[in-house]
């Protein structure tokens, strides 16, 4: 697999097209849930994402988002939305941390597919420091939204 192909793995390209959880307006937030929202801008490119999380009893019921950006950022939003729904807040936080470490590793850390699921496909991104922000954009937004939901 070429460097480029390891960046744009098929899973990433697929997620970037069939975007899980995309559309804040399409489905209402579950009633009774604690809601948190976060809007993040990638300052290098100007791309933006808005994420809404709904938390019930420490469990994430729903992650919905709107945004526009490159394949990496859209796929990352799709993946966390899929991965996060149904997770405990603490567990997802831990996964976000694991993902962040993976992204910062400059290719030195092996992704654990058991923990990260489809997000393991992003390991190639860590070799492209300029693209790490793309992968992190929605994940950071989820992190902030969770903090708001719990505040």
């Amino acid at each position, binding site marked *: 697999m070429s460097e480029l192909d390891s960046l744009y793995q098929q899973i990433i*390209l697929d997620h970037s097209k069939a975007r899980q959880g995309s559309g804040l307006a399409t489905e209402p937030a579950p009633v009774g849930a604690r809601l948190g929202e976060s809007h993040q801008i990638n300052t290098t490119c100007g791309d933006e994402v808005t994420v809404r999380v709904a938390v019930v009893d420490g469990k994430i019921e729903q992650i919905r988002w709107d945004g*526009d*950006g490159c394949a*990496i950022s859209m796929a990352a939003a799709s993946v966390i939305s899929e991965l996060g729904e149904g997770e405990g807040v603490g567990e997802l936080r831990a996964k976000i941390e694991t993902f962040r470490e993976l992204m910062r590793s400059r290719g030195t850390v092996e992704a654990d597919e058991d923990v990260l699921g489809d997000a393991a496909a992003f390991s190639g991104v860590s070799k492209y420091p300029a*693209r790490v922000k793309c992968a992190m954009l929605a994940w950071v937004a989820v992190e902030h939204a969770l903090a708001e939901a719990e505040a």
Partner: protein
Amino acid sequence: MATTRSAPHAPAGDAPAFADERVALFRADFPILGRSVNGVPLVYLDSAATSQTPLGVLEAERHFYKHENAAVNRGSHTLAVEATDTFEAARATLAGFLGALPEEIVWTSNATEGLNLLAYSFSNASLGRGGQAARRFALQPGDEIVVTEMEHHANLIPWQELAFRTGATLRFIPITDDGELRLDEAERIIGDRTRVLAVTHASNVLGTINPVVDLVALARRVGALVLLDACQSAPHLPLDLHALDVDFAVLSGHKMLAPTGIGVLYGRRELLDAMPPFLTGGSMITTVTMEQAEYLPAPHRFEAGTQRVSQAVAFAEAVRYLEAAGMDRVRAWDSQLGQRLVEGLADLDGIRVVGPEAGRERIGLAAFDVDGVHAHDVGQFLDDRGIAVRVGHHCAQPLHRRLGLTATTRASTYLYTTTDEVDAFLSAVAEVRGYFGVTS
């Protein structure tokens, strides 16, 4: 006044483009062009962001440090006198290149600083600094500053801030869908309230060359000051600022073979001499007490503190390099490559080039959108082939918004760019949509 475009002051096409052999000779002066990235040879198509620097320019700077480095305009020992002579000779070289007088050339860090210098000097004038002579630069509520929809942020935000500081209003001339200035609207907008017209000579996204002569005429009619952003024209076309009859112009050395950290603000002599200072400190004063200071005439009034001496020396050498190549031929070459870019891109499916269509005048660049693929992914794909292009909003967000885009991919050329490089770029672009699985 007619809204048709008048010819630029020196029409294109009167000089032949370079032969490929000549370009090969240029390339030998730029070792970086021989490097490889990702295991393939570099194809550098990002000169509109920053150009590469030839060995002779580096050598001029090195020579300065090995033989004459000293603080200029301050010292009186031999070394300082020599350094001052070299520094002022560099100013004269730039003046000659731009069709200006040496006293009309102020050194800055880059074009951005030149624009901020003007905006802050005008707001100092608005506060009464510079007295009666500087009143013509003072702005107040009701006054208008006019820019265009195609400006680089550097020629937009400083004016927004000036408007904020003085209460003046910022207005803008819209563009056509083809990325040309709407002169009919310009005529309507530039009116009695207009005090400053700030406009780019050539667009760093569209490639459009604006009709400066017409715009100056509109501004003169109402007594407005005209600032020309020459960042993308000075590197690519012969410029004669006196002939263009603009009041101010800014440019950056790093876009025209010089190192980073040096630029020029041009101002008509009597204007610079009447403007209040911007940066204050050493080397720009006559008498200082604890309470106040009196200032030197231009250009030194605007050159506070120790200057970018070796960078100025290098800039002069860069300009000599361009003069030796011939600016009319540089223009012909860039324009030929620019056309090749637009024509090649127009032939591809799902590609939308912004700016003037093929066959119409443009500088050596083309920015485009790839349907279904984000510009950063396009850039990444090209980079994998060793092709360096710029992606994003190119510091022109309002323009992109007007075009209905958030980002584009831009390829730009210079005198060292080969036809083969343009062709390699075009064939790579042809593969982008397939790679990302976009088929529609």
